[in-house]
C-alpha cells in the first residue's frame, strides 16, 4: 500500500469516500459512494470529474522536435497545426505497441506527449533512446504535472466561469493555454469517455485547488466525481483502446483497427516496414465489437472466443453496458469472422455463450 504512487488528489479522493485500488502501481479511486452506474450515467447525461494525474507527460523540444516525432510515431505530425492534438502511438519495429498516446503540438519545436501511467518509465526510456541522433531535449514532467478530466454534456457550462479563455472556441482535439482562477493551465478538448469534455493540465501543486473549484462549481449542475470503474465502461462503449487490453506488445496497429493513425504514405516511421509487410501478407485477425445474446451472459477480459466450438480468439474487454443496456465487449477474431452479423460464442466459465459481431462504437454521442 505504501509502495503505491499517489496523485496530488489522494487526500481529496479519500475525503469524498472513494474506494481506492492499485491501478498499475497507483493508488487510484475506482469509484465514489454513488457507484459505477450512477457515475457512468452522470458523464453521459450531465458531467463527471476524473483525476487523471497519474497519466504521464513527456515534453519534446528542439529544432528537430517535429521531424523526430514524425520519424518516431505513425501519425502525421507534420500535418498538425499549432494548438492541435492527435492520437498516435509508439510502435516497436515489428509494428506492435510500446504505448498509445496523445500528441500536442505547442509549436514546431515543442510538443507534449501524454502517455499511460503504467508505461511512463518505459515510454520515457523509449523516447530518450531514440532521440540520441536528433537535436531534441526530452523531459519527463509526469510528477510535476496534475491532470483532471471534466467529461459530459455540461462540461463547458461548469468550466467556463472558472477560466479566462473562450472554451467554445477550442475545437475537438485542440488545446489552449489560459488561467484558471489565476492559475496557469493548459486545457484540451479531449477525453476518454465518448462525451464532449475538457482535460485540464496544471502544476501538481495547483491540482487540488483546481479540482475543488470545479467540484464546487459543478455540484449545482449535478457534477459527480467519477472513478476509474466508470472510465473503463465509458471508454469501452466508445470503443477507445486500453493499453494492456486491446493493444500491447503482441498486437499490431492494423489488426487493432487503428489503421487511421498509421500514415503509411508519409514516409519512414518506426514500425512502418513491418506494417507494410503485414498489410501485403494480409491481416490474420482483427479487433471487433460484439454483443451477447442473453442478459445472463457477461463476457469479461481474457475469455476465449469460440467459432465452431474451437478457440478462435480472445476477449480484450467485456462488461455490461450501462448506456446500451446489453452486455458488450471487444475481441480479436480471425478476419473471416470479422463481418458485422457474424455469430460467435464466448466461453464463460466453461459454457459456450452466443454473441454477435456488431458495429462500433457501441455508443456515439449526438452532436
Amino acid at each position: 500500500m505504501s509502495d503505491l504512487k499517489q496523485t496530488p488528489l489522494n487526500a481529496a479522493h479519500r475525503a469524498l469516500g472513494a474506494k481506492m485500488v492499485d491501478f498499475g502501481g497507483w493508488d487510484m479511486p475506482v469509484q465514489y459512494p454513488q457507484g459505477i452506474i450512477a457515475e457512468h450515467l452522470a458523464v453521459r447525461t450531465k458531467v463527471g470529474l476524473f483525476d487523471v494525474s497519474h497519466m504521464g507527460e513527456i515534453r519534446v523540444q528542439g529544432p528537430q522536435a517535429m521531424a523526430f516525432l514524425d520519424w518516431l510515431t505513425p501519425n502525421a505530425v507534420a500535418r498538425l497545426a499549432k494548438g492541435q492534438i492527435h492520437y498516435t502511438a509508439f510502435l516497436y519495429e515489428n509494428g506492435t505497441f510500446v504505448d498509445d498516446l496523445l500528441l500536442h503540438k505547442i509549436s514546431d519545436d515543442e510538443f507534449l506527449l501524454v502517455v499511460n501511467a503504467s508505461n511512463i518509465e518505459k515510454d520515457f526510456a523509449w523516447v530518450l533512446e531514440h532521440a540520441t541522433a536528433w537535436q531534441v531535449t526530452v523531459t519527463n514532467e509526469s510528477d510535476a504535472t496534475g491532470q483532471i478530466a471534466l467529461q459530459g454534456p455540461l462540461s463547458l457550462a461548469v468550466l467556463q466561469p472558472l477560466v479566462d479563455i473562450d472554451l467554445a472556441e477550442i475545437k475537438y482535439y485542440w488545446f489552449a493555454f489560459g488561467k484558471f482562477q489565476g492559475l496557469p493551465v493548459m486545457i484540451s478538448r479531449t477525453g476518454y469517455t465518448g462525451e464532449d469534455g475538457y482535460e485540464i493540465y496544471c502544476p501538481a501543486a495547483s491540482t487540488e485547488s483546481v479540482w475543488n473549484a470545479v467540484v464546487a462549481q459543478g455540484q449545482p449542475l449535478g457534477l459527480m466525481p467519477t472513478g476509474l470503474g466508470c472510465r473503463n465502461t465509458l471508454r469501452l462503449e466508445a470503443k477507445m483502446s486500453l493499453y494492456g487490453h486491446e493493444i500491447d506488445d503482441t498486437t499490431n496497429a492494423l489488426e487493432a483497427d487503428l489503421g487511421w493513425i498509421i500514415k503509411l504514405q508519409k514516409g519512414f516511421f518506426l514500425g512502418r516496414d513491418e506494417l507494410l509487410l503485414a498489410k501485403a501478407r494480409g491481416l490474420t485477425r482483427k479487433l471487433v465489437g460484439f454483443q451477447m445474446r442473453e442478459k445472463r451472459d457477461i463476457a469479461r477480459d481474457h475469455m476465449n472466443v469460440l467459432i465452431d466450438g474451437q478457440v478462435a480468439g480472445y476477449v480484450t474487454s467485456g462488461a455490461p453496458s450501462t448506456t446500451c443496456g446489453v452486455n458488450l465487449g471487444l475481441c480479436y477474431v480471425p478476419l473471416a469472422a470479422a463481418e458485422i452479423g457474424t455469430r460467435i460464442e464466448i466461453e464463460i466459465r466453461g459454457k459456450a455463450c452466443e454473441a454477435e459481431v456488431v458495429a462500433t462504437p457501441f455508443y456515439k454521442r449526438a452532436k
Partner: protein
Amino acid sequence: MYPADAKYTKNHEFIKPLGDGTALVGITTYAQDAMGDVVFVDLPEVGDSFEAGEEFGTVESVKTVAEIFLPSAGEVLELNTELEAHPEYINEDAFGKGWLIKIRLAGELNPELLDATAYEQLVAEESH
C-alpha cells in the same frame, strides 16, 4: 455491523438459520461493497442440492464476477426472484432484501463457519 444470528464464510457468504431447519443465504455487505454495482445474479433451480462449499451461482457486477458457494449443505427451497428486476437490492441491503436463496439444511450447520466476531476480524484484516 455483521448480524450475530448469521454465520459467515471466508469467501464472504452468509447463512442465516431461521430456526425451522431452513436458512437464508447471501453475500455479505463487505462482498457487495468490494464488487460494486451488481447487475445480474445467476441462481440454481429450486430442488437442487449442494454440498457445503459447493458453487451454486454467480453474482455479476459492472466490473467483476464472483462465484458463490453454499456455506452449509442443503436443498434449494426458494429463490429471491425480486433480484431479477432489482439486482441492486444486493448493494442496498445484502442481509435483508438482497438475500439469494432459501435452503433446507441437510443436517447440522457446517461447523467450520465463522461467527460474526470472527468474520469481522477477517474483513478487518482483508481491508487493511
